[in-house]
């Protein structure tokens, strides 16, 4: 603390500390605690809040599991299904994202000369100046029944009739993968960048195949970057709203859509909070799992 003050001077240090405390307390801790509390309270009209009925209860969590606040006879297959579908799809999207981004990141960090690497980075970033909603609609146009992709495939004679990419959720998976690509590429790129190129050559000189060099040298070196990219992509994918709204098929729901409905359309903030807390818990579990799997510490992930 003392050295922090000395390094930055009293004015800037005080500003930093106030800004960070404000950010943590007012923007993260208090709202989340409020939501947590709200999720354990019944959904009451404003007049009854704070009254005798405003007690802690598990009804919203019960509703998630049983589909009813009172009976436990049936399971809420719809909501549970959406929940697990969201989590599993998000995991798959994360894996696909990793497989897709790793070669690009490796190419940028170790193969391309600095000039073309910079060009590649710029051309990856520029599309993300366009807002997420617009990007999703653009993909919808590409994947539509009469869209560019179908027209090209039919025109080239590869298929006879249009593929319904939207109904098959191919559009959704593509959109979700594409949406957070940068958050995967940059941690990977930074991690691989810092690997001494001589180690790659040394491995090659010792007879290692390209695949094994990646498996034994590059991936172990980059594991903090991999874990960091995967956790960010997973969390944002599981929590995405715009892309699923625009690209999912009519009978696929994303868990965030349910949350949105409870908050906005049904005006049931308590249930919305309960559902948010569920999603948050799974995301945290996922991060802890990634850290265990890759044997990295939280500090390394953030780096």
């Amino acid at each position, binding site marked *: 603390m003392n050295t922090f003050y000395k390094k930055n001077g009293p004015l800037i240090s005080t500003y930093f500390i106030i800004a960070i405390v404000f950010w943590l307390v007012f923007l993260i801790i208090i709202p989340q605690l409020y939501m947590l509390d709200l999720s354990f309270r019944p959904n009451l009209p404003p007049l009854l809040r704070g009254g005798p009925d405003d007690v802690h209860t598990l009804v919203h969590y019960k509703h998630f599991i049983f589909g009813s606040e009172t009976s436990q006879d049936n399971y809420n297959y719809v909501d549970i299904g959406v929940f697990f579908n969201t989590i599993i799809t998000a995991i798959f999207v994360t894996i696909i994202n990793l497989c897709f981004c790793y070669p690009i990141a490796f190419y940028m960090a170790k193969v391309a000369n600095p000039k073309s690497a910079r060009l590649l980075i710029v051309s990856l970033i520029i599309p993300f100046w366009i807002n997420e909603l617009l990007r999703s609609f653009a993909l919808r146009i590409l994947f539509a029944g009469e869209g560019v992709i179908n027209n090209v495939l039919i025109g080239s004679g590869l298929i006879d009739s249009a593929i319904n990419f939207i109904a098959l959720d191919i559009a959704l998976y593509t959109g979700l993968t594409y949406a957070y690509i940068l958050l995967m590429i940059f941690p990977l790129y930074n991690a691989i960048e810092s690997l*001494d190129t*001589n*180690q790659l050559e040394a*491995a*090659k*000189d*010792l*007879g290692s*195949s390209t695949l*094994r060099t990646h498996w034994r040298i590059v991936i172990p070196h980059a594991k903090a970057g991999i874990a960091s990219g995967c956790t960010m992509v997973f969390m944002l994918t599981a929590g995405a709203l715009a892309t699923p709204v625009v690209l999912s098929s009519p009978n696929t729901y994303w868990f965030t859509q349910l949350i949105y409905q409870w908050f906005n359309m049904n005006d049931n903030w308590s249930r919305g909070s309960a559902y948010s807390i569920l999603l948050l818990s799974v995301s945290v579990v996922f991060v802890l799992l990634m850290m265990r799997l890759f044997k990295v510490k939280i500090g390394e992930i953030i780096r």
Partner: protein
Amino acid sequence: MSADVELQNISVTFGNFYAAKNVSVKIREGEFFSFLGPSGCGKTTLLRAISGFLNPSEGKVLISGQDMAGIGPNKRPTSLIFQNLALFPLMSVSENIVFSLEVRGVGKLERQKRAEELLELIALSGQGDKKVHELSGGQRQRVAIARALAIEPEVLLLDEPLSALDLKLRQKMRTELRAIQKRVGITFIYITHDQGEALTMSDRVAVMNEGELEQVGLCDDVYDYPHTPFVATFVGENNAFYGKVTSVQNDLVNVESSGINFFAKAGKKDENSNHSFSSGDDVILFIRPESIFIKNDNNKLDNTFTAKVNTIEFEGNLKNIYLKMNSDMSLKFSVPNAVDTSELSNNTDVELTFSSQKAIVLPKGALAVD
């Protein structure tokens, strides 16, 4: 098994810059061969061409007579030790050493056995489970050697592997490297900018400058009979007297340098012939610091001259005496520490002497500037 390596007219260009230019040399099997040259002269480039990491723009690399064009580094019978060692930090010492066997699918037990053998070779028995960062600089050095030797290469290529070590350790490692080479009996191609290192370890050295080979030969030949002014000044120390040839008698050249007449041998042009000079040629006369003596009744050689003492420098076993002959000529000579130099002080005139047999004359050319 060891192999000979032949470079035939190798050139390597980056854009239109020649990092290596028309290099031809034959390295014999089982030889400890060094490329010696200043920083940036193209040594690493040449080594990368031998190991297969870069393709020469022109010329051929032959190993055991076989053209290596199109054969990748992992398929050549060479093993490279990198300038920064490039050990794998996330693997244990043993894993590092037998990585090359792992990639060849050698079983775990067999690998363990081989790791132990190699650890013994480098005197690190029982330390295989350590992580690389737990070793000292010299130990890492030896691990890099063991790792490179694990595949039993026919040629070991070493890129200034000792440059990061401190002086004492470097000297110790020289002896060790030489001993390891004797034991495994394979060809070592060693790169260094440190002439002491090259001379103590090598059978033969090649002196490089700006991408070109200046001279290839036995260590003492390169030291005693440099072919160019660059070699004369880069390998060991030398006093250079610029002058003009006044006459030539048999092998002895008479050189006039700032008013003084010196006699010296004509330097060698190549292995078998000497440079020939005629009156009026611009030349440089070279005489090494250890070949100059203070003139007295016991020491009277065929060259004598006078100079003024400038400074005396104490270097442990030697004393270096710097003198000035006139405004633009200075020289250095060394005497063993035991010699009494109490009567020499600044600005005293001393009479010096050296033998014409120890001095050589070469055509004027660029010196090595350190």
